[in-house]
């Protein structure tokens, strides 16, 4: 986790999701995010954190998630989501085929796609035993 990030560490459980989302949501309010952008941030946070909760740790070895943020300026927020689970790059997944009609559309696979659409920038890094996903959200002027 970058040094300048304000951090919150909680167990990688679904019960932690609300607290993580509120933690970053409050920072975005401080950074003067309008309502629509707060909703976009909630969506990105929920998709990223749920992904880690579901896939990072095996049931037999529960672990933590660390979320950090830095307010880069008015309407600009950087967020890092770190875990010490198995190496997993969510960004490496093939994009969904959006041309498919109802009968052929798979039910899942849209979460990380939405994250990529909404985030101004996003990157994945494996550092030692840590997965580090860093993204930036910026309010359009």
């Amino acid at each position: 986790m970058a040094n300048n990030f304000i951090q919150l560490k909680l167990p990688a459980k679904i019960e932690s999701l609300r607290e993580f989302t509120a933690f970053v949501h409050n920072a975005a309010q401080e950074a003067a995010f309008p309502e629509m952008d707060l909703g976009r941030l909630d969506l990105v946070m929920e998709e990223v954190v749920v992904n880690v909760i579901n896939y990072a740790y095996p049931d037999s070895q529960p672990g933590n998630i660390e979320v950090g943020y830095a307010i880069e300026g008015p309407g600009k927020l950087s967020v890092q989501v770190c875990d010490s689970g198995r190496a997993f790059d969510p960004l490496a997944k093939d994009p969904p085929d959006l041309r498919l009609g109802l009968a052929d559309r798979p039910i899942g696979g849209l979460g990380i796609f939405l994250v990529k659409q909404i985030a101004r920038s996003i990157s994945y890094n494996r550092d030692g035993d840590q997965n580090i996903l860093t993204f930036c959200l910026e309010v359009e002027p």
Partner: protein
Amino acid sequence: MTIESTKAGKAVVVKLIGRMDADTNKEFEAAVAQLVSEGSVYLVVDVTELLYINSAGLGSFLRNAKRAQEKGGALLLCGLKGLVKEVFEMTRLISVFPVFESTDAACQSIA
């Protein structure tokens, strides 16, 4: 999230109020499964007062629409706006579901 179902001729209007997330999407699926099992296969889903949706919620829309279609019906959408509209546009689900401005227009289309 609150779900209000109202019979409207051949259709049932399902109004979603609040936020659809990883918890509440199951309620939407259960409500629609119940309606379809009772023979209501034309579902007009009014999202005018739906403030938030995530990918789990989108999955529920797809699952419900497939369920209705399998029984010879359809899931129609109306009242898209704000973040919910944006998410349906980004994922191009806006072209998967028939979309209407109002519940009246949606209901008339299947009359």
